[in-house]
């Protein structure tokens, strides 16, 4: 009898939370609904083929990332590779029109935002990391009711996550642009096409809007997690010796 009653009590408690969600409950539900905290915690790497479109132009590429903060984006334009990468120490890029044929260290402002990335979700062990979360209330996003959650990173930077109030997955992330003439303007990243990869639900489609206008759309394919990714993959290659161009007649 006592057992039954206590179960009822617990149920009632959880229901009383119905109308007073806390940030922790939302995060807990999010983890539960997308594969479980343990799985998120255990993730070590991701890899995916992506198609990104900007103002109607599309580029394909591959993105690799590895805990705690390594990442690499390779884009293929007409068979020519362009790269942005960070190996945990050096942010570098290859963009022939700018860098020439050899990879170069990234300009400081670009590098800063690359190096600040963390592989792990800000919600995983957030308190231990020095992040704080705060539920700001409800807001409508794309016609869907959401919980607006403020995430303040240890470094003071603020992002807002908007969790669908039915499914408890984020459908939008808002954060200010950090550099350039639009510094301080909010960019909204909309998440959808959640699909399962080895037991984790991940958003396969993101659309970035700035001031309500689409800046970029990214579609992911062939997502793999927890692959062995060699650290060398992320490191800036040593300069290759290149032969001088032959300066042939151009007509």
């Amino acid at each position, binding site marked *: 009898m006592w057992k039954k009653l206590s179960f009822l009590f617990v*149920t009632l408690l*959880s*229901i009383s*939370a*119905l109308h007073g969600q806390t940030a922790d409950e*939302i995060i807990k539900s999010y983890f*539960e609904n997308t594969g479980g905290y343990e799985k998120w915690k255990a993730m070590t790497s*991701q890899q*995916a083929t*992506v198609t990104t479109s*900007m103002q*109607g*132009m599309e580029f*394909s590429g591959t993105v690799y990332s590895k805990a705690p903060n390594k*990442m690499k*984006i390779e884009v*293929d*334009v*007409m*068979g*020519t590779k362009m790269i942005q990468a960070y190996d945990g120490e050096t942010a570098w*890029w290859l*963009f*022939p*029109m*700018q860098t020439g044929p050899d990879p170069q260290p*990234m300009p400081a402002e670009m590098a800063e*935002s*690359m190096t600040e*990335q963390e*592989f792990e*979700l800000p919600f995983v062990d957030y308190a231990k990391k020095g992040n704080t979360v705060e539920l700001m209330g409800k807001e409508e996003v*794309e*016609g*869907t009711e959401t919980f607006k959650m403020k995430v303040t990173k240890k470094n003071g930077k603020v992002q807002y996550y908007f969790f669908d109030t*039915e*499914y*408890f997955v984020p*459908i939008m992330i808002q954060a200010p642009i*950090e550099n350039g*003439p639009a510094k*301080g303007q909010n*960019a909204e*990243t909309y998440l959808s*096409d*959640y*699909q399962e990869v080895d037991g984790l*639900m991940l*958003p396969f*489609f993101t*659309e*970035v809007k700035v001031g*309500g206008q689409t800046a970029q759309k*990214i579609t*992911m394919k062939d997502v793999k997690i927890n692959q062995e990714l060699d650290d060398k993959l992320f490191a800036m290659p040593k300069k290759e010796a*290149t032969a*001088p*161009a*032959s300066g042939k007649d*151009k007509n």
Partner: protein
Amino acid sequence: MKKIFLPQNIVRVGKHKPYPLTNLLAFLLVFLLGLSDLQAQSKAPSGKALLGGLRARQIGPAAMSGRVSSVAVVPGQAEIIYVGAAGGGVWKSVTGGTTFRPVFDDHSQSIGKVAIDPSEPETVWVGTGEPWVRNSVSVGTGLYKTTNGGTDWQLMGLENSERISDIIVHPTNSDIVYVAALGHLWDAHEERGVFKTTDGGKTWTKVLYIDENTGCADIDIDPENPDILYAAMWSHRRRPWTFDSGFNGKSGLYKTTDGGSNWETIHEGLPTGKLGRLGIGVAPSNGKVIYLSVESEKQEEKGLYRSTDQGANWEQVSTDFNTTVRPFYFSNVVVDPQNDSIVAKCGLAAILSEDQGNRFRTMGGGVHSDIHDIWFDPANSKHILLATDGGVYESFDRGQTFRMWMNLPISQFYHVSVDNDFPYNVYGGLQDNGSWYAPSRKSGGINNSDWKSSFGGDGFYSFRHPTQKDIIFSEYQGGNLARYNSKTGQAKEIKPYPTGDEEKFRFNWNAPVHLSPTNPNRMYFGAQYLFVSNDMGDSWKRISPDLTTDDPEKQKQHLSGGLSIDNSTAENHCTIYTIAESPKNDQVIWAGTDDGLLQLTTNAGGSWTNVTANVPGLPANTWVTFIEPSPHDANAAYVTFDGHRNGDGKTYLYYTADQGKTWKSVGENGPEGYALSVRQDLVNPNLVFLGTEFGLYVSLDGGENWDRFENNLPKVGVRDMVIHSTANALVMGTHGRGIIIIDDISPLRAISEELLQEKIHFFASAPTVLRDPGAGGGWFGGSGNFVGPNPTTNAQIVYYMNRRHTFGKMYLEVWKDGELLRTLPAGKSAGINFVSMPTAIDKPKAAPSKNRMALIGAISGPNLEAGKYDVKLIKGKNTYETSFELAYDEESPYSPADRKLQHEKTMTLYGMVEKLAYLYHSLDQVQGQLAKQEDLKRKVQAKVDELEEAVQATKYKISSQEGDYYVNESEQLHERISDLYRQVSSFPGKPSSSQLQRLDLLQGELKTLNAEADALLQEQLVEVNKWLAKADRDAITFSSVEEFMKGEGGSSQGSYQQLRVEKKELLRGWMHTPLGSTYFLHSFMK
């Protein structure tokens, strides 16, 4: 096949419960507690979601910019600038003015003061409600604060102050702030005076208050002792027909020495008698020296005063015209931060004295008149900014010369119109900035230089004659109408004059001109009488008696102004303000007056009926702002009324279906702000647009319910709007943010209750006219010029979804004649989604190259042909189908035969680029495998090495693998073909004979190279493979054409072929975007 979670795998338990359902009891409880929420889920998307899919387009202009009331710059960081516009919100630059972006779109756009916290520059205070109180001034909604440089704003109170003239933040304590509330302009109200907070704005104390008619026009602080402040209290009142500066005589200059607890007047040496508006300038470098602009009873006592003892005594130092002119507009005085002898004063022109105010010179030449704010750079006071009626100007030589900032699209339109050109042009008149027109679309965007002036003065109504293409009607204030010929550049003034026995004509400041919707040669013009002209204004016929109240007490413009007569026609009253002929019956004409009468004739002016008394709940003398006779029914009309000039800010919108006999109030459910304009849709009578002081509202049910249109449409006064009948665009004239266009309102027309219940609904759309690529357009202008965006050239696939798509795949496929052309990301929002379909196919797969032009050359795919295209929308397991059509521009000079040839040759070259890409790929694969073959028998190894060398040699003939992508690079066949592809594909007409000849030659070269590669891959490789087989090694293989084409190698692109330079810049911009931070990881890692 992996199992994919479908939505039902996700725990979904009502709106609030995070935990899985574990038993029946829990279920029942959830059901009982959450019933209303469960029901709510079947609801259609909110109006906000429905409208959210449409995006407004702000085309400026910034050519003449608009009135700026306040400028603030971060001390020591002159590149961080905030501009507070009179009606266009707050704009921020972090680049010294080369670029600006609006940071205050969610709030009232009328700005009184922007103040930066001196000890915490990311904290900025904005007081809304312009304090330069001209007749057309907008209203504010209180005090706002940001602590992160404008990203987020919080309302900090004083919501009912209407206007905030000044804000002083304590120099070292961010929690202490003084706010000067000028208060209500049009009525008595107690929320005015000086307010102080000591807790960062949480609570406020009114520390200086005179009475409900006297507000604080200016405050200033002593630079050495922050407990010493000065406040200019101003008693004033505007009425619709008059202005009174000085009003009840309570104006005065006050001083506190204890942080606002006690105040005393400091008038020693100031004029006795009634005072008007005063402006205070304490020298930042020496608190003893204060300058004061004074409005008083006697003309000779007006002017600039100076104190050298902290305000204890005053001495008049100047009566210069600009020290006395229009104090309500120009009272601002600013002292050089480095030198207390240098003082500047706002005026019709800005003036500057370098000798303590004794002698003044005018600052600048070519600077717009009417100066409201002046900023001196504290680090270099020769660096000066001026805020004017025409934007912001910057000087580096202490005001000798100025450069205008051409990137602030804060223009204040009174009215807007469109013509029937393709693309259509937009016309309108602006506050103090004349009349202008520009195309709604232009190759490279709508530049400042695309705006043409069609008359001067303050501009109001401006129209192109519907059939006489060179004629534009424009006007300036007080009923001065002109007929401008855009071909000759000459203007003829055409206003009517009274005959001998007629009373003087009274024209409103903003006198109505109306073009008949039924007869292109008929136009109306309103004074107190209504006039009609059938000869383009050369002669006028009066078709009404005096339609106003003709109240003599309200016809004293010449006496208006209070202490300073201000006879500018701005207070002309008892005039007709709006005119509208029914598009369904030219006998039905409506006229509304500024003194609140709504008049109707049903016999083209033969007789008139005053229907005002039939309008229920409308206070007397409420200004009639807009009449929209229904485009569907001659008996019906929507009318807006505006009472804000009587202190009544309610939204008044009424509808009649019986020629004004009965009226229904329809603006109650949703809209905020006094009503300025209304349009009923031309197709769907239930679709109604309402412009108020706080933005655009849309109703889908004839006015019962409204939602604000928020996507790129700030809370700006929408003074006028027009629906373009063929472009299906809503074009708005806003008083502070220029022209704003919603390019395609057709989806809104189709919305119905039934449609809202559908899961997916595709909206029909007109064929998309293919835009031929434009050469020319932008050049290297650097930053600093505003360019209005164009509407999209892409085909639009538009659909409604009743719920947002969050789980599982959703995308679109575009098919042509059974062939899949491309896939597109889908819009996922509940409500209306627009998916842009580029009207070009994927760019060709190409061999790698280190040649810049080759890289740029093949970056675009060829244009699609005109015709019908099928669309499949794949959402989870379901597929929904629709189609769209592309059409050639009938006005274009290219014949179908030329287009056909161009397309054919483009596709030939496209195929050649891909053929080479395949050859390169195959050779590269083979070479790679050959290179790995080691330690074979010497003879076999020799054959392998020989083939590898041959393969490499052929590969290098395909494309350039050397160079720096610029001046040290080579070219091979791929580069030559790519370049020709670029040339031929980017011109929509017939390729040149030289190009065709070149194509033949390159085809020959390709054939030769192909044969060479075939020999290697088909013959010699087969031979080598035999040897390898004998050595027990795997055969060397390469992909089939099919495998290669399926691969990701070439990637894809979209968009119409614009200038390749733009593509390059886009690519560059994209690569410069640290994808990792801003965008990419959101998707990839989270």
